[in-house]
């Protein structure tokens, strides 16, 4: 990173601190309506009390579990289907039309149906998250396979590598960066999905916490929920990025 870029990133952090500072002072002086926008200190207090009572951790854990189950199964299926369909042209032809019809359906439009089919409990929420996580990973995996270097595949043929070896040594590694791009898209979608699903029908989870505090007009708690989502989403993406740099080591060398 150049010196100029470093200074700019430091300024970026300072900017947020300045905004929070102004926000705090504005709330204390009465420039900002605290019903609409709680002061940072009120939010911090709400955060402390929710954390202290253990209820915030409980809501996080519930949402986290839903996301993990839905995300892992949805993204896992996405990668699998992406690989299978892009390496077997006849299957792709067979399924491409059905997939093209299902894909544009917003997952939340299916939520009421999922409730009907899988119950109002965990099943329907996990299904929505799985549905949301499936598409970005599926499409990215497919694209990754399609973008694999034909020259390298031919090389593997010239060296008489079998089908499985060719997959493991050429196709999979060249698809990995695409798979990670899909996984990162999917995780943010999955978090968005769980919150909305919990707002619509749940009695626990971060989404429920936000919706419930709206009913109770507890603006500071609503902010606590929103900020929690931001922190978790940011952390998840960061972890995936670190994992990507580790696994796709050759990709980072190029930069």
């Amino acid at each position: 990173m150049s010196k100029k870029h470093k200074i700019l990133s430091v300024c970026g952090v300072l900017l947020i601190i300045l905004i929070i500072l102004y926000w705090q002072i504005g709330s204390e002086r009465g420039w900002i309506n605290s019903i609409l926008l709680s002061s940072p200190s009120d939010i911090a207090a709400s955060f402390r009390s929710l954390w202290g009572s253990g209820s915030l951790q409980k809501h996080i854990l519930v949402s986290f579990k839903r996301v993990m189950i839905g995300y892992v199964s949805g993204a896992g299926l996405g990668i699998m289907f992406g690989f299978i369909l892009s390496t077997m042209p006849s299957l792709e032809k067979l399924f491409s039309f059905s997939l093209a019809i299902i894909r544009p359906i917003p997952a939340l439009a299916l939520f009421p149906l999922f409730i009907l089919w899988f119950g109002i409990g965990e099943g329907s929420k996990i299904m929505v998250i799985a549905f949301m996580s499936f598409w970005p990973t599926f499409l990215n995996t497919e694209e990754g396979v399609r973008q694999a270097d034909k020259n390298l595949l031919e090389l593997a043929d010239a060296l008489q590598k079998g089908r499985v070896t060719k997959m493991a040594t050429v196709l999979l590694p060249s698809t990995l960066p695409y798979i990670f791009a899909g996984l990162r898209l999917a995780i943010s979608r999955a978090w968005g999905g769980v919150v909305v699903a919990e707002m619509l029908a749940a009695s626990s989870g971060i989404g429920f916490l936000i919706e419930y505090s709206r009913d109770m007009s507890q603006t500071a708690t609503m902010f606590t929920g929103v900020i929690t989502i931001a922190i978790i989403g940011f952390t998840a993406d960061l972890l995936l990025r670190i994992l990507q740099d580790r696994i796709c080591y050759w990709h980072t060398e190029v930069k």
Partner: protein
Amino acid sequence: MAGMNEVNISHIRQDFLMPTGGLEVLRDINIDLRGGEFVSIVGESGCGKSTLLRIIAGLDKPTDGEVLIGGEKVNGVSSKVGILFQESRLLPWYSTEKNISYGLPRGMDRNEGRERVRSLIDTVGLNGFEKALPSQLSGGMQKRVAIARTLAGHPKVLLLDEPFAALDAFTKMNMQDEILRIWEREKITTLLVTHDIDEAIYLGERVVMMSPKPGVIKKVIPIDLPEDHSRTSDEFDAYRREIFKEFFGSDKRMSQWFSDD
């Protein structure tokens, strides 16, 4: 009995199916290579020389005719043939070492394989770069890895498909000496395809000239250079002149021929 590493190319014809109908790419190509011989094929792009190489490698099937290697008919890729492509085609996620071992024959003993990779790294002079990724190597070094990988398979026949076309002039001459050195030591039957006339003369014991539409052999010129293979010798110049004349009719105003290439 035919030698183990003799190559017989007989009556090869290749048609490509185009939307406008069949296109004859190669017509009645006949070349016989003695075991251990180095033959260069030179011609402009589109004369079918790369197609011919792909047929010998077993990557493409000819419309007609056959290729025998060691008396056996080529039918698909085989471990007898090693091919060096124009691009180095290294796996970006593999180190030098692993890229070279990628070319080892299947089922080779692990220790034996490791030993072979080590000696190949010696041969191509990449000591100290065993763990480097392709992205950390220069173009010339990447080419050395590709050469070592091709040699790892112990090919009886080596096919070079314009292997140095993408390299700068200095690296290119360097690599040509490298190939010559390896060929002299291992005595692998080698077929080089190139559009570089100097390269064809410098490396080949015979130069096969091809012309396009359809691809046919125009002339075969035996090369007999002095021991040092000097690129500036009178003999070298004489061959250069002969080939230029054969291709272009005269050795003047080359630009008019190359203008649309």
